């Protein structure tokens, strides 16, 4: 469902992504890990069409993100780490506006509204301005909007920042359920327990280079260590740091 071939990205003289090759099949939860500044967000921005690669190819659902951006964007959902929401719109207005942008029929938007607003406990807040929502409620609204058009591929950058335990459980269950239903989930996180918990496969990026790829068991076998934390630290620890 996601195909990355020889992906490179330069920021001036900085080589941020160094020839990544990766294939993520349909229905997989893929966890993309790496230290700060390793190239995770750059990769996800290229995958979502927000940035263009310096070289290499990226295909989502068989569509080239560079040559068929609209078709590719139509089948993907993206939840950034610092999402934008229209402060002066109500919860329901933001939801319906998202539906309009994706060309979802109003009947389907109505059904999705009932389903996701109920799931994320947004029904009683539907007339509240985004301006007045707490961080957790905003995150719930963003998830609801992202699922509205039934994306085939979901990109999530740091999915659990600032959420309460109840919402964390809700999101984890939902991502698992969506993956079982055939959605491909590509997520980046610093919470290694989350990757252990829901990741089918894990990729670790260091200095723009995909240095490890496999299931948790494969990574442990190949790189040593009892936990993902051991593997991660073993692979990414800078020289000289304890």
């Amino acid at each position, binding site marked *: 469902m996601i195909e990355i071939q020889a992906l490179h990205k*330069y*920021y*001036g*003289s*900085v080589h*941020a992504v160094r020839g990544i090759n990766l294939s993520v099949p349909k229905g997989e939860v893929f966890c993309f890990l790496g230290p700060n500044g390793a190239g995770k967000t*750059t990769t996800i921005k290229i995958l*979502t*069409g*927000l*940035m*263009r690669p310096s070289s290499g190819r990226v295909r989502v659902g068989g569509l080239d993100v560079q040559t068929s951006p*609209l*078709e590719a*964007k*139509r089948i*993907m959902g*993206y939840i*950034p780490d610092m*999402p*934008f929401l*229209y402060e*002066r*719109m*109500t919860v329901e*207005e933001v939801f319906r*506006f998202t539906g*309009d*942008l*994706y*060309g979802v029929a*109003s009947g389907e938007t109505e059904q999705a509204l009932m389903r996701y607003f109920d799931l994320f406990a947004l029904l009683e807040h539907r007339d509240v*301005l985004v*301006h007045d929502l707490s961080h957790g409620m905003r995150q719930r609204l963003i998830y609801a909007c992202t699922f509205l058009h039934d994306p085939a591929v979901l990109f999530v950058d740091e999915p659990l920042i600032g959420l309460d335990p109840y919402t964390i459980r809700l999101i984890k269950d939902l991502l698992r359920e969506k993956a079982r239903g055939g959605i491909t989930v590509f997520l980046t996180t610093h919470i290694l327990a989350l990757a252990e918990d829901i990741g089918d496969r894990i990729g670790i990026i260091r200095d723009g280079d995909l240095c490890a790829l496999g299931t948790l068991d494969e990574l442990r076998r190949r790189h040593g260590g009892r936990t993902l934390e051991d593997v991660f630290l073993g692979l990414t620890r800078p020289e000289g740091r304890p």
Partner: protein
Amino acid sequence: MSVAAAIRRKHVAHVVNGWRLLRSQPRFKVLFILVFATACEIGLWKLFADGFDFLERFGGVAGMIMARLFSLFYMGMFMMLVMSGIVTSYATLFRSDEMAYLLVRPLPVKLVVVYKFFESAYLSSWAFLFIILPFVGAYAVHLHLGFRFGLWTAVFSLPFLVICSGLGTIVIQCVVRWWPRRVGHKPLLLAAGTALGLGLWLAKDKVEAGEGTRFALSALIPGMRLSGNMLMPSAWTADGIQAFTRGEWARGSLLLAVVVTTAAVLTLVVEGLGRATFQTAWESVSEGGGRRGRPAAIFAWGDRVLGFLPGDVRAMIMKDVRTFFRDAMQWSQVLIFFGLLGMYFANLRTFHYDTYSPTWRNMVCFLNVFSVSAVLCSLGARFIYPQLSLEGQGFWLLGLAPTNMRRILLSKFALAIVCTGVVSVFLIGLSSSMLKVGGVQVVVSVALVGCVVLAVCGLSTGLGAIFMDLRQRNPAAIVGGFGGTVNLVLSLGYMLAAIVPFGLAFHLRAADLIDETFLHRSLGFSAAWCLLLTAAATAAPLVLGVRALRDRDY
């Protein structure tokens, strides 16, 4: 539903919810802002109406000037709106959080660019409306023009706004896309720009020499000839409105068609540029991976120069300096404000103001003091007032540091004074020297501007602390709030109260209505009044600001 309809619906929701938010605001605050805005509009109307009456008294040439004044006004608007278009388009296209949100949706980039371009035109239109309403009203009343004049002004103004914003958007799209980033390219660009400027200057001199006295009016009123040039969109607009008002339907329709088609063509150019270059340009602004700060050596030099200051004060000052210079939105606006004034002052002799009678030179000199002071008030409201609020979530760093709120506030106050003071005093010195006014007037002008700098910085810093809002990240919302409005009103009020007595004394003397002894007495009284007012306007907000910072919960 089409995307365009969805965006339209989003804007309707914004307006409706904006009204909802407004109703939840304290009534006094809303009333205060409304009264201030209305008073400003009425004041501007009165100013324009008095100006027209004043011109009328001269007879002869004044009639010719009045006939061309409308074109001149539109030319001024044209230049202002193009500048405004450059700044607002940069903010809406390249710095808005909404852009990343829209770019990941299945929308063509060109559509997003056109949408943001219209948003930028809409944002620019507020200032346009605010100025054009009183001008057109006063002009129509003075010349006894009927309702049709207002109607045709409205019809022409819409495409005119699109043209101005379109030019601004095109300029900023090209600049961001092709601005040289490699070492060695910038000096090349600078050299090319200088050569172009020099070429234009020489060409201008040649044209002027060739025209002789054919267009004497343009020598009297700067910009008059350019405002009538039929290559200027402002000339089409002004001429078209007047043609329709006079009942010249054919000429009016032709000019309306020119304005509308130009607006349409510019929209197409914006769209085309958006499709071809926007993504690359946006990436170059938004990607931070390889960006380096300005040469650290400059800031290291600043640190050394400020070595005599205590470490915490120096650190806070240098933090603000770094932030300012690394934010193109901030320094570019200051550059535009002061740059335009600098260009105008440097050209005072080109306009032969130095050859005018003492009465006129005195008036121009005090008008220049007003200009610099008004720019100071705007800068105080736009940059100094919101700086504490913009510390935002980072304020904990200052709050927990082993320093105190008094030092934080005073360091911001001192930095504001140095930055605005140096430029303002230089500008007013330049103006006085160009006008060849007397020594006493030079001293008074410089001292007056010095007082305005002190008071505006004191008011803006102090009120910024009193009305600090750490949750708000949008500077426009901070400036447009209650505290921001109070700050602007008080700054403008102070400016008038401090400058008018001096200006009046010099004017009465120049008009021979008072003798030298009375002038000196008046100046002494004005100086005492100004000093007292400045001390109060500077110290009171700072003391209250320190108290507010100390007493609030973080």
